Every structure is written in C-alpha cells, then in structure tokens.
C-alpha cells in the first residue's frame, strides 16, 4: 500500500453509490494521511463530489466502509461528520451574505453569554465571538478589518477566507475543500492556496478537489486520481507530471501501473 504503515486519518474502502442507473461510486477506495494535502482529481462525472459527500456525511454510500484512524465510522448527516472533526468548505461556500463575519464563523455553534443572561435569556456573546473570530482570521493571516462586516461586502477571496477560517477553527481531524479556487482570480487563488498550506502546516490534513492542474501540483503532497467512480492511482506530484496525471485521469495511461509510486 501507498501508506507505508501509517494509519490514515480518514479511509474509505469499496464505496459504492448509485443514483438510479448511474453508478457515481463504483467501489472507490480512499486514504488521507496525517498532515498532508491530498488533491482529488478526475474528469467530470468521475465521482469526486460524490466521494467527498460520502466523507463529509452529506450522502450515505450504498456499500463500503469508512474508517477514522482505523476505527469504523458511519455518518448519518453532515453534523455527524462534524462531530468527528471533519469540516467541509463547500463549493458555493455556504455562507449567509447579510450576516457578519463573526456570525458566519459561528453559525450553528454560537456562544451564549455566561450566567443567567445566557442560560435564561439565551443572549449571544457577541463580544467573545467577534474577538475569537478575529483570532481565527489572524491565525490564518487573513487580513480583514472588522469581524462585524457583512460577508457580502467582502471580495470573493476574502469570502473564501471566511469559509476556510470557519472550517479551520472547528476542524480537529480533517478539512475538505471542494473546488475552493474555481470562482477566483489569480491573486485570490494564491491567497487560498497559501491558506491551504497554512492549515496543513498547523497539522490538519486537507482534502482538495480541483480541476486546476497547476494548482494541484503546486500545493498537493499526494494526488488521488479518480476515474469512472473509482480510484485508479495515487501519485506523487514531484515524480509525476501534470500531463501524466491527465493521461491517467482520461484512461490514456493505465493507473494500476503507477499507483504504488506515491
């Protein structure tokens, strides 16, 4: 195996997911190692998003198993996965544009005031949420003046920063990002790639789905190549070129031949 005896943080074996006649996942395997950025690439319809949804609890596979640090787990919904320390940055970001940055960071995990104000009057601790939001953003070196700014006033890259900061603030095991740079310009894409490295260097493994080969090869430690609903290879981006990866992705080169190389 490509894992060299290290227990994967998150592992999937033989995942199957069918939608009517379509088989989105056809016995897909998956391994995420501690502290790595793992890119997941594949053609349109290869099953990347479906794989990621299974890993984040957004869908339930028809067959196959999930393991976290070697232990079998089952996610009935996204909240379940979150309780296991897996946070996902969705492609459409899933932010509430009219709410401010702090509110978005703490959406669904709001902090109440201590004492009777919180327990009886259910009062939010805005000060603390704002202060902690500022800390989280600061840790990731995202420069935003005010945590009270509505998210809709931010640029695309800054919004992405908020979504990443939210995941990084609460993830304890894994961060998943689905096409985080798809809607961004060059400069903002770089900001997000820096964020990904920043998160990785703080010890959290990152799963990155992307169609952008140069970005994948710039930031990933390993590349998982998905084709027709299954993993066909895992390659080391320092030993394989982007064109090799694309050849495997499209079936022009056999994946099995190289899958041990990483």
């Amino acid at each position, binding site marked *: 195996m490509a894992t060299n005896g290290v227990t994967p943080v998150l592992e999937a074996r033989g995942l199957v997911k069918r939608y009517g006649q379509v088989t989105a996942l056809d016995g897909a395997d998956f391994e995420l190692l501690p502290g790595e950025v793992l890119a997941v690439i594949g053609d349109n319809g290869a099953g990347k998003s479906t794989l990621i949804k299974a890993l984040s609890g957004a869908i339930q596979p028809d067959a196959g198993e999930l393991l976290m640090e070697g232990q079998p787990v089952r996610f009935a919904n*996204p909240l379940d996965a979150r309780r296991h320390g897996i946070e996902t940055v969705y492609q459409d970001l*899933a932010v*509430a*544009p009219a709410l401010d940055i702090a509110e978005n960071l703490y*959406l669904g995990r709001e902090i109440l005031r201590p004492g009777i104000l919180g327990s009886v009057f*259910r009062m939010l601790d805005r000060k603390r949420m704002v202060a902690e939001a500022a800390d989280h953003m600061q840790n990731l070196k995202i420069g935003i003046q005010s945590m009270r700014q509505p998210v809709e006033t931010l640029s695309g890259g800054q919004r992405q920063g908020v979504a990443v900061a939210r995941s990084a603030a609460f993830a304890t095991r894994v961060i998943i990002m689905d096409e985080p740079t798809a809607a961004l310009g060059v400069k903002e894409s770089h900001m997000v790639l820096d*964020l990904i490295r920043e998160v990785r260097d703080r010890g959290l493994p990152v799963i990155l789905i992307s169609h952008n080969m140069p970005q994948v090869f710039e930031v990933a430690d390993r590349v998982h190549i998905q084709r027709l609903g299954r993993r066909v290879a895992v390659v080391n981006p320092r030993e394989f070129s982007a064109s090799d990866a694309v050849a495997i992705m499209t079936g022009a080169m056999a994946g099995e031949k190289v899958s041990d190389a990483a």
Partner: protein
Amino acid sequence: MSSVVTTEQPGGRPKTAGRSFVASSGMLSTLGPLAALILACVFFSLKSDRFFTGSNFSLIFQQTMVVGVEAIGQTLIILTAGIDLSNGAIMALSGILMSRLAVNNGVNPFLAILLGFLLAAAFGLLNGVLVTSIRLPPFIVTLGTLNIAFALTHIYSQEQTVTNVPGALTWLGNTFDVGQTAITYGTVLMLVLYAFTWYMLSQTKTGRHIYAIGNNPEAVRLAGIKTDRLLLIVYTAAGLFYGIAALLLVARTSVGDPNAGQTDNLDSITAVVLGGTSLFGGRGLIIGTLIGALIVGVFRNGLQLIGVSSIYQVLITGILVILAVAVDQVVRRRSR
C-alpha cells in the same frame, strides 16, 4: 514542504471589538423610513394644527396597533424569505372565536382569549407544516389558508357581529394618562411586543438563524441547524401574534367583527416593506416595521385631517409600497 506565506496583510491584528453592531448595514436601512416618517409628520403639522398633539398621536398609535402587531408576524416570515397572506383572516377568525365563546357560550373570558390565541397559533403552525413538509411556496399556502380562515369565520359567526363583549376582552382598550395624553394599554402591549421581538431577532441564536435562513437556507442546513423546525417556530409564532392582534382589535372596537382584517395582509406587508425589510428575505430590522406601520398610520390620519378623501390614501399607500420595493431591488442588485 517549505511554504512561503505571502498573504497581503501587513496591518497586524485586525481592529474589531469596538465596532458597533448598529453601525453595520442593517441600521442604515431604517434611516430612510425614519426620515420619511419625520417628513410626513412635519408636512402634516404644517398643514393641520390638530396633527401635532398628544391626543392625535395616541390616536395614531391606536389605529396602528392591530396592523402593527400583525406586521411583527409578517416580518418574521418575510425574513425567512416567505410571505403571509392569511394573517388578517386568521386574526378575524381568532377574534370571532374569543368573542363568541365569551358572549354566546358563556365561556370564561380568559379561557376564551386563550383559545383564540391557540387557534391563531394552530393556523400559523398549519401554514408552517404546509410550507416545510410539502414544500409549497408560502404565497400559495397562505392564499389557501386565507380562504379557509375567511370561510370558517363567516360560517362560525353566521355573519353576526358579536356585541357586549366582557371587560376582559376590552381591557387593552382602556387608557392611562401621561400628562394630558391618554394612552391605551394596547399601545403599550404593541411596543412591548416590538421590544421583545427586537431582542429575539438581534440577540439570540434563533433570531440570527432566522436571518440566515432567509439569506441562504442551504448554508443553514449544512451548519447543522434544523431548518424545518426553525420555520415551524416562525410560522407558529407569527400565528400567535395574529391572535394577540385579534384581542387588540376586539379591545379597540368592543365587538367581534367577522368582516375585520380583510386588507390587513397587504397593510402588514406594506408596513414591513416601508420599514426597509427585504421581500427576498434575510435583511431588515423589526424597528423598521414599527416605523413602516407608523408611516401608514400617519398618512391615513394626516390625510384625513386635511380632508383628503380616503381613496387617495389608498392611492398614496400603493405608490409608497412600490417605491419601497424598488429601493430594495436596487440595493440588492448593487450588493450582488
């Protein structure tokens, strides 16, 4: 593995905590309505010396309180990106139920009031269930329940207005004096309900989730919040506000009227929109709705004082609504 982090951020620690929440975009949206309200007051004060008096303002509040309280429920629903056409009909049904139970059936008036509240809340819940479980658009659901509540009101009341309602149902119409001005308890209740709703919307989790669901329901779901449950709470609470509005109407008019509230759905939507709340959901402040309701009240009252016939009041209200919605559209487009 060397990663050179080159984010554009020389400024050090972001300044944050000091920024007042009030200064954020929300409050700006009520400055326009507030200016309109003040301008209207100035205008009518110049036109009629009977306008700017304590007793006239007390009257405006009394004329505003029923729609004002219905508009609270309407605001909650519109914030979730819904709309409620059934509120006036639910209020009429609830008012007829409490007054008839108390007068015709000799039910203890407090129990009658409670049953009226429960019926209104149940209708709100019904709206919520239809919206969440069958996923019908709120516009269609509440158009249906509008007709159901309207028909039930007329069947149950046999088209009879209920008179001689007991004191418990009219108590909110009583007054106390502040200086020279008599103020009804109903007006105070309305203001208390607004204060309560302000607190709930701005200071609690549930309130912020209501905004978020109007902004991006999928984000709320993915954040692990039970969106259907939240919507059920909103629609049921709105129903309860319509029940309270029913009691206010009975108190104000001293009768149970099966024909009450027939334009209240549009009047309450007018108040919400004039108050700067977006019909697309997720944006707006409850204080804006109070201002919006008062704008409508001031126009009605002022135009009447200067002798403009009531059909022009309707005309002007219509123009105001379209203006307010147009402003909302433009603002929204710019923020895209």
